[in-house]
Structure formats: structure tokens, C-alpha cells
């Protein structure tokens, strides 16, 4: 009886507070929601609409239906290579990045100067990608440092960026370098949060170093690995800046990417509708891969 009498006023107070808060939340959310609608949601819809039209920068807009999509592989010789390169970039970058960053994160954690290393490896992340591209172009020059090093080891230095066989790999190295610090930082944070006592108990039970690593530490870090994989996948699909500045997609089409294809079609050829189609294809690709990731995570990601 007394319990009920006490609970009732609490509930009304709760309800009043909620009503109060709802009104306030609406006000506090207005700028953000308005901006999100105008600058993200509306353009998203517009992107799909644009892809269904022949939409020149200047001139008449005519309905195209799915023509822009149908022509991607037939009339547009750049899209096929761009899609292929983008997928190859992603397939190379994601696994190499993850293996290296997890490895180095553990290595750095063993050092007394771990904080320093985290900052040092983060430097390329905050470096403007145009500057990154220029820096590496300097190193990759035929008479530059890397050719000299290759020559020292008796190798015939390739013309890194100018030969179709080495250009893509050379760009991959730059992108790996650029993104390295970000994932390493994520993994460093995860390593810091590993439960010391559990690991100590395991080693008391006679678990060796490799067993602790593969059966305890890495499984505990799967949420971080999942997050880093997702972000790196999405970023790899969106590669533009580095190849644009270093190779302009060349030689030939050997380093052209989907985003570069979108940019060139829209803003150099002035065909916005034709450019919107590959952009949508890219988005769907990202969406599908991310969804597969999300549904697959139950199989290997361990949440406590």
C-alpha cells in the first residue's frame, strides 16, 4: 500500500520530466536535424534522381531511365578498370593494413615509449593527402631515393609511378602509410583495455605466449578489429586523392578509381547524370559489403 502510494507521484514526475525533455530535445536538435536534412538526406535522394537523367552541367536535362547504369560497362570504357582497381585496392589494403597495424600495435605496447610511438605513427594521418602524395612522388622519382635503394640491392629500379605494372602497388604503399596510424591507435586502445588479471591467470595456467595471443588477446580485440575493418573497407572504396595527385589515374587506366571516374565524368566532362550512376553503384557496393560485415560479425566478434 505504502509502496504504491510512493510510486505514483514518482511516475507522474517522470512523465512530466519526459514531456519537458521532449520539448527541449526538439529545440536542441533543430539546427543539426535541419542541416542533416538539407545537406545529407536531400542530396542523397537527389543523387539517385540525378543518376536517372542525362544531366549536363549546361544544357537540357532529359530522362534516361536506367541508361546511365546500362552504359557503365558498354559505352564507358573507364568504369570497368576503375571498378576493378577499386576492388583490387581494397583487397590489398584491408588485409595488409590490419595485419601490420595489429602487429605493430602489440609491438609498440611492449615499449616503454608507447605513447610517443602512437603519436609518431599518427603523423601521416593528419598530413594533408595532397602533401602525402607529393612527398611520395618525390621518393618515387626515377632519380629519387627509392630507385637508388633498389639499385643498391642490385634490382633494376622500376619507374614506380610511370609503369603500369608497378603504379598500383606504389599507390597502395602510400595509402597504407597514410592510414596506418589510425588503426594502430584503435588497436593500441584495445590492448590497453585487455583484462590484465585474466591474462595473468592464463599464463599461470601455463598458456604460452602464442596461445595467449591467438586464443585470448586477439579474440578479446575482435570488436576493435571489426570496427577497424569496417572503416578501412569503406575508406578503401573511396580512394581518390592520392592517385589523383600522383598519377591522375595513369599510366593508362592502371590507377583510376571509381571516385576518380565520378569526378572526371561530372566535373571534367560535365555529365552529371552519367557520373551519378557510378557513385550510386559505389554506395550500394559499400552498403552491401558493410551489411555482410555486420551480419557476419556474430560468427567471429566477441562482445563481453
Amino acid at each position, binding site marked *: 500500500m505504502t509502496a504504491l502510494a510512493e510510486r505514483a507521484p514518482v511516475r507522474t514526475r517522470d512523465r512530466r520530466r519526459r514531456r519537458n525533455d521532449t520539448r527541449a530535445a526538439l529545440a536542441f536538435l533543430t539546427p*543539426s536535424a535541419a542541416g542533416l536534412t538539407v545537406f545529407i538526406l536531400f542530396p542523397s535522394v537527389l543523387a539517385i534522381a540525378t543518376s536517372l537523367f542525362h544531366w549536363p552541367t549546361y544544357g537540357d536535362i532529359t530522362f534516361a531511365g536506367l541508361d546511365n547504369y546500362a552504359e557503365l560497362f558498354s559505352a564507358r570504357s573507364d568504369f570497368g578498370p576503375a571498378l576493378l582497381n577499386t576492388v583490387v585496392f581494397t583487397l590489398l589494403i584491408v588485409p595488409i593494413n590490419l595485419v601490420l597495424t595489429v602487429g605493430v600495435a602489440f609491438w609498440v605496447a611492449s615499449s616503454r615509449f608507447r605513447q610517443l610511438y602512437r*603519436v609518431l605513427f599518427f603523423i601521416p594521418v593528419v598530413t*594533408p593527402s595532397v602533401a602525402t602524395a607529393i612527398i611520395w612522388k618525390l621518393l618515387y622519382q626515377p632519380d629519387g631515393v627509392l630507385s637508388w635503394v633498389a639499385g643498391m640491392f642490385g634490382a633494376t629500379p622500376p619507374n614506380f609511378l610511370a609503369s603500369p605494372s608497378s603504379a598500383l602497388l606504389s599507390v597502395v604503399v602510400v595509402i597504407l602509410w597514410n592510414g596506418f596510424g589510425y588503426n594502430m591507435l584503435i588497436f593500441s586502445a584495445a590492448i590497453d583495455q585487455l583484462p590484465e588479471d585474466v591474462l595473468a591467470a592464463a599464463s599461470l595456467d601455463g598458456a604460452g605466449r602464442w596461445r595467449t595471443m591467438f586464443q585470448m588477446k586477439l579474440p578479446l580485440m575482435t570488436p576493435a578489429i571489426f570496427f577497424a575493418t569496417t572503416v578501412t573497407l569503406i575508406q578503401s572504396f573511396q580512394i581518390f586523392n592520392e592517385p589523383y595527385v600522383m598519377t591522375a589515374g595513369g599510366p593508362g587506366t592502371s590507377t583510376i578509381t571509381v571516385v576518380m571516374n565520378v*569526378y572526371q565524368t561530372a566535373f571534367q566532362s560535365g555529365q552529371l547524370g552519367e557520373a551519378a550512376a557510378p557513385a550510386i553503384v559505389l554506395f550500394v557496393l559499400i552498403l552491401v559489403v558493410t551489411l555482410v560485415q555486420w551480419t557476419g560479425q556474430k560468427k567471429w566478434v566477441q562482445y563481453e
Partner: protein
Amino acid sequence: MRIGRRTARSANEVALALVALLFLFPVIFTITSSFKPNNEIFQSPPSLWGSEFRWQNYVEVFQNAPFLQYIINGIIQSVGGTLIVLAVSALAAYAFGILRWRGRDQSMLAYLATMMIPQEVLVIPMFLLMQKFGWINTWQALILPWAFGAFGTFLLRQFFSTLPYELVEASRMDGCSNWRTFMKIILPLARPSLAVLAVWTFITYWNSFLWPLIAVNDIHALGNVPLGLQTFFGEHGASWNLIIAASVISIAPTLLLLLLLQKHLVKGIATVGLAGR
């Protein structure tokens, strides 16, 4: 045994230091090369330092290109963008992290979903929108389109939601409105996470390239540093010494921010990155 372990430790430290040095070699080499005379940049064998220490490269960057203008433009865009992002995100984060209302978590999820839409998909419709607004070649076109992403809201919400609701209740007892609570209590407490978001946003705007490339015709008047750097690179194909000095100038502000605020920035990114799972 003990000595053996200690040597192994030192060897490990030395090896790691060497790897870090190798990793940073491109940056180090670029900085030292920026002081070389042009004819010494490509040499066999390469050298770290030139025969003379040529400060003049930096002077000539500013003489040969409107680089000072690019820097000023970049600062205007970055500071303007950062202020808007901070204001908008903090307000929204108060609603998501502090206030209690029906549908809050679902709305937050919807916000997070918008982070999936890549900028690359939005550039064409955004360009059309800017044309419609008559904003091509304006500050607002450079700043506004990317100021409303959910990342800032999410980052601040993560921090706000760790604050006890009793704080808000207590301040209401004292007769504070939500606005006053937000301004006088929450914002001061959130200073570290606001700083992280500010630095990160500044860096993102400062480094932005694809959108300025699209939204700006008059690079001199509105171009930021990466855009200026790119045109400079195209026009001065021969004088590597100037291009390299210009690149170093473009790196300097973000590098400085990272080194000054490393503790907060690194911690902030690490924790938010993880929470983003």
C-alpha cells in the same frame, strides 16, 4: 639470465625505434629536402642535407604563388567550419546524451546511419544544390555542406552520456533552464571532448581536397592549402625545392596541433573509434 632479458629488451627498443624512423623517413626527408637547392634534390647517392641550408625556398614559395592567401583561406574555412560543427554537435549531443525522451535511441541510430553515406556520393547533388543556391565559389559552399555530419554529435554524445542525470536535475532545482544547464554546466565539463572535436574538425577542413576542387573556381580567392598546393604542383613542375617547401608549410599546422594536443587527440580518437563499434 637477467642480463639476457635486459639486452633483449634494449634490442627490442632499438629495433622499434629504427622501424619508426623508417616509417617517418618520407616526412623527415621532405623536411630536410625543403632546405636544399633545387639541383641537389635528386642526387646519387641521395643526401639528407644539401650543401647549403636554403631558407630562401620558403621565401620563394610565397613570392611565386599566393600561398599566404591559401593559408588565410584555409584558416577561414577551418575555423568557420569548426565553430559551426562544435555548436551544432554540442546542441544535438545534449538532446541525445542528457535529455530523456521517447525515441531517443532510435533517432541516434538514424543519425549514425547517415555517417554511412560517403561524401563521394554526395558531391554531385551537393554541387547542384550549391548551383541552385548560387553558392558556387562562396565561403558558405566550402563550409556548410560538411558541417552537419553526425560524427561530432556522436563523439560528444559519448561523453555527455557519461554525465549523471542528477546534474541536470540539481540544476533544474536551482531554477536553471535547459539552455542555462547546457551553457553553464555541461559545456564547461565537456571541454576536453570539445577540444578533441575542434582539433579533428579543423584538421579535416584544413586537409579537404575533393570538395574545394569542385566548389571553387577562383582558387586564388577561396582555395585552401591542398588546392593551392595541387595547382602549384602542376604549374611549377620543375622546381621541386619550392613544391617541397610548400608541402612542408601545408603539413606544419596539423603537425603542430597533433604534437601540442597529442594526449587529448590520441585518447579521444582511440576511445571514440572503439565506441563506434
